[in-house]
């Protein structure tokens, strides 16, 4: 178990290194750099001044030198400096992270919990109306574009029935004390979370329904019933633990997206998250920030994969034997 975990971590680190190098080279291959943007924004350009700025930022050096420096800095925890925003990349990421994490994590957890419950409910009543309702609802949820869903929710719950704010992360000015401050943030996050989770929810309810139907036909479920166990224990102990494996797989994949998976929703609701940061960095050729976000995404994906592996081992003893 411990050796397997150690092995996974080593693989993960190699993978992250590869992602960093690849990102760096890709961006080098793209035409234009931040100096072009700065010069254009300053109202046009003297090539000599541009060259001077490049020299001062070290952009005139060969690619391999820049890469070596970048990697060296990464090792010390320095993710670079945003020339465009005049701030360190690490600080930018950290200041944008809380909003994104709260949004994506709560949307994901909400979707997993409610989706699984809906799936179980539908699977245990295969003849019922609810089963068909869940199927139809899932298909609709899956097919609806996120931006449209977000705008409709905004329209209904912010404009016609103004119970939730339509944009931002907190009120201005923010409440003074701690508890109202937290409640204020949560209040702002209701609509974006719901929007984001609809898409996830549809997937989980379909997945857990199919998986549950499959497991409920298994021989060991009949054994459990023949012991005289209540239907609740049969479903939530014997069936759920087996049926949750596919759900964990998908949850693990989506957990990898929590860092940068909400670009559309964050932009729509004007949240100060990683999404808008990435979007701005792309349009402004702010490469260090871009690489920082991609690095963060790579780390999250790798960590999510390791976590999924661990949960798998916890759930299924048959996997524990294999390293």
């Amino acid at each position, binding site marked *: 178990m411990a050796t397997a975990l150690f092995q996974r971590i080593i693989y993960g680190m190699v993978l992250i290194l590869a992602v960093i190098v690849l990102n760096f080279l890709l961006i080098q291959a793209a035409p234009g750099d931040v100096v072009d943007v700065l010069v254009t924004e300053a109202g046009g350009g003297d090539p000599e001044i541009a060259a001077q700025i490049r020299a001062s930022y070290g952009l005139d050096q060969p690619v391999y030198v820049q890469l070596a420096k970048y990697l060296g800095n990464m090792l010390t925890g320095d993710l670079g400096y945003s020339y465009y925003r005049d701030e360190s990349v690490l600080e930018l990421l950290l200041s944008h992270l809380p909003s994104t994490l709260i949004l994506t994590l709560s949307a994901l957890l909400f979707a997993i919990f409610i989706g699984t419950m809906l799936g179980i409910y539908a699977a245990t009543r295969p*003849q019922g109306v609810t089963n068909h309702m869940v199927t139809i609802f899932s298909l609709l949820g899956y097919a609806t574009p996120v931006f449209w869903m977000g705008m409709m929710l905004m329209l209904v719950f912010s404009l016609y029935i103004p119970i939730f704010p339509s944009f931002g992360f907190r009120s201005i000015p923010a409440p003074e004390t701690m508890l109202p401050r937290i409640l204020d943030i949560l209040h702002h996050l209701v609509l974006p979370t719901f929007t984001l989770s609809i898409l996830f929810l549809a997937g989980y309810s379909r997945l857990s329904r199919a998986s549950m139907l499959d497991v409920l036909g*298994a*021989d*060991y479920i*009949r*054994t*459990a*019933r*023949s*012991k*005289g*166990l*209540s239907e609740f224990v049969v479903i939530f102990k*014997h069936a759920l*633990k*087996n049926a949750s494996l596919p759900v964990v797989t998908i949850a693990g994949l989506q957990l990898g997206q929590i860092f940068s998976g909400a670009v559309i929703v964050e932009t729509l609701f004007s949240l100060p998250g990683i999404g808008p940061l990435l979007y701005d960095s792309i349009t402004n050729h702010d490469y260090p920030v871009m690489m920082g976000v991609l690095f963060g995404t790579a780390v999250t994906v790798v960590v999510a994969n390791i976590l999924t592996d661990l949960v798998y081992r916890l*759930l*299924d*003893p*048959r996997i524990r034997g294999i390293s």
Partner: protein
Amino acid sequence: MKNPTLKSENTVLSVENLCVDFEIKGKQVQILSDISFSLERGKTLGIIGESGCGKSMTALALMRMIPSPPGRISAGRVVLKGEDLAQASEKRIRDIRGGEISMIFQEPMTSLNPVFTIGNQIVEAIRRHKDIGKSEAWKEATDLLDIVHIPAPNRRVHEYPHQLSGGMRQRVMIAIALACEPTVLIADEPTTALDVTVQAQIFDLLNEIQKDRGTCIILITHDFGAVAEMADRVLVMYAGHKIEEGTLDEIIDSARHPYTQGLLRSMPEIKVDPGDIRESLAEIPGVVPDLLHLPEGCPFAPRCSFVMAQCQDLPHYMDLGDNRSVKCWLAQEDSRTKEQA
């Protein structure tokens, strides 16, 4: 139709005119037709028949575990110690399951939940029916593993099903079934998926348990060899009907129904010296009828070599006395000619 099964004081379980219907494609199909039998303390009843004849369904009906919908018990009684289980409440029937009637299944490889230790699965059965603490239940689980002859029970109790062989898993299933000292143990083809040597061990174990505890066993099988090994009485089923019942000796020595005779003839005999000529094995021509399109009258008629005009009507149970019965016109003809003679 009168139930021909006689009841004695030792009767623990009696099934009376049990019928089970399934709704298939909007049509009511009778899966079990008028099944009656009784079970005496410490005895084994063998239920024998081809796949799809309703023998497993009979077992599930006793525990009220028929998948519903589409199935339901449409008539009859299942009387356990004076209580009709067909009418019992859902809560009461859950107390019966695993408490009074236990069942072991055909597929030991898939009948245990792969994600829980075998100890957990035994303890769960114990604590469902007995009001005892966790550590005590775990001790009982270990003892049960010892009773079913699993070596090193202290270690095995913490293992998962995939760490055990098929024979071992079936022993664990038996341990679970024994957990609350049931009155009736239903063994649904308990050895079909196992090696021949392991089969013999499992039968020995079941016989031993019956001797020690006086448990009634219902052995469901398609194998006359297994029945001969275990059963005191035999019930032969065909297409949802009980077609013949009697003691083991009566059935083997003087089967009356053509189907039973056919089943017996289709058993290979092992000879020490088969000689030059090997006899070809007798078979019953034709296949088991589709329950959706059962013929009128006797369901075995299309395959029967003694078929006569009368077989267009369903025969009655012919009581041959001494708790022996057969559902065939031929037997009725025979007794009539005897009477005349």
